[in-house]
């Protein structure tokens, strides 16, 4: 009985360790192998129940053009990016199939811009980089600063499969 419990406890610790390692390594691979670009961003707001204050970001490339009617909610979408001389990325094309390797693109999911909107034309894209966690008390300040400057830039690293990690936010 005692041995069984010890064995179970060891298996649990190994299981936890594997989850932590997988979680961390998957993000590290993107950071190490990906390309860093700047994305124009507009802040929205507040607080995660376990992780504290964050700024909710919306990107200029988040809004799907209204003529893209063949995109449905929860579809995966690939935004092909052009990068200018200042390293600022903008969308050249939205695609439903994965672009060929060598192109810079970011992967997202089609969602409603407003969670409870019933309009079928209200479509946005979430890239998984919409939350920027900050020190307690600084979310409002950052929001205010970004809003006063109309927009800011998010420093993002994107890997060859379009997965992105947000590493920072800065003003214009």
């Amino acid at each position, binding site marked *: 009985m005692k041995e069984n419990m010890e064995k179970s406890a060891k298996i*649990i610790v190994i299981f936890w360790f594997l989850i932590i390692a997988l979680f961390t390594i998957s993000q590290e691979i993107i950071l190490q192998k990906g390309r860093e670009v700047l994305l124009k961003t507009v802040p929205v707001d507040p607080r995660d129940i*376990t992780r504290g204050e964050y700024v909710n970001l919306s990107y200029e490339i988040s809004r799907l053009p209204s003529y893209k009617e063949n995109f449905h909610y929860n579809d995966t979408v690939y935004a092909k990016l052009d990068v200018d001389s200042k390293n600022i990325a903008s969308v050249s094309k939205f695609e439903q199939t994965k672009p060929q390797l060598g192109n810079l693109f970011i992967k997202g999911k089609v969602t409603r811009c407003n969670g409870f909107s019933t309009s079928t034309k209200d479509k946005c894209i979430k890239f998984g980089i919409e*939350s920027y966690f900050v020190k307690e008390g600084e979310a409002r300040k950052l929001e205010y600063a970004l809003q006063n400057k109309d927009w800011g830039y998010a420093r993002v690293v994107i890997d060859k499969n379009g997965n992105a990690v947000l590493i920072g936010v800065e003003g214009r």
Partner: protein
Amino acid sequence: MENRILKWQKDGLITEDASRQMLAEIKEEKIKLRKTRINITIYTIAAILLGLGVITFISANDWILELLNSNRFLKIILMSLVTFASFMGGVKLKEENKKFPKLANALIVLSSILIGATYSVIGQIYNINANSSLLMFIWLLSILPLAYIFKSYAINVLSIILMILTIIFFYGELSLDKFLVWTIFIPVMCGSLLYTVANIPVVLNKYNDFSLCYKIVGSVAIYFTLIVLTCSVEKSYQMLSFYYLAPVLAVIVLNVLNYAFKKDGKENDLLYKESFAGIILLSFMLAALLAPVINSSFVIFLANVAIIVLVAFGFNYGYKFENENIISVANWMLTIYVAVNYCRWGWNYMNKSLFFIFGGVVLLVLGMYLEKKKKALAGLGKEG
């Protein structure tokens, strides 16, 4: 019990010495029990406070952490070590040094909170989107074995909360087609899933207390959805999406498997009935999701039948296994159902004074009847 011992002594069934000794032992036992309860309460509160402290410390993302932020792995390693130490410390105290069993349990509870905090730290460092269902899900997966292996009630409650949050966050991340996803679909799915997980034969046979906890929460979720359905039904659901149809089908299959792999036994007769009821309920849910138009009167009728079946199940289960908690839940369900329907129909069709007087009398009689039945059961338990 003390009164009964005095009565036995008076009737000459036991001697005065024996009576005195029995009373002294009962007194001693009571003091011991009270001390144990105080210990459990202190340790549990301590574990929760420590867990909350760590979470808020991490949430604050404060200056001390800036030191750790100089290398992002430091924060993760530190959190992991604290979590593993708390867990292994709890296990060692429980198994090897049996002097502090309550402290051991509290440390294990603490580790179940800390592992969630560790995942949150990783999410925070890499700015993974807030309120993520993935984070809740892996936290849930990480603590489920703990709940079952160490038979911890606190971790079991945490697992129920996480299971519900995972479902809510998952559908929150999707673009919802209709508002009734929140009022009908999610509560039914949460309830059915909890109920079905509780009926997995291994869980049911080895961890009956956990099963009961899951079932009570699951029943309450389904019950309130049915109450909503008795009052208002949309003409069409038509949520023809993989995300809505697949989970319903999966839970139906799980119910079928539960039944197929059941072992013979008194309690498993109930599993047969519950699995059958679950499959029927979910099949109607599936039909409602697929059908282009819904007959509102039919759905309202079914919802009423389902509530009556659920309440009957509750009373049947409660009295069969002599469990006062289940009887109380069934009492509440019946009272709310009667009150909702009485207010809904009575207010429109009855004279107002008659409405209050009749309602009061009915509830009074019903309350007295249920109280009497419950007391009879409690008396039976004491005698046993």
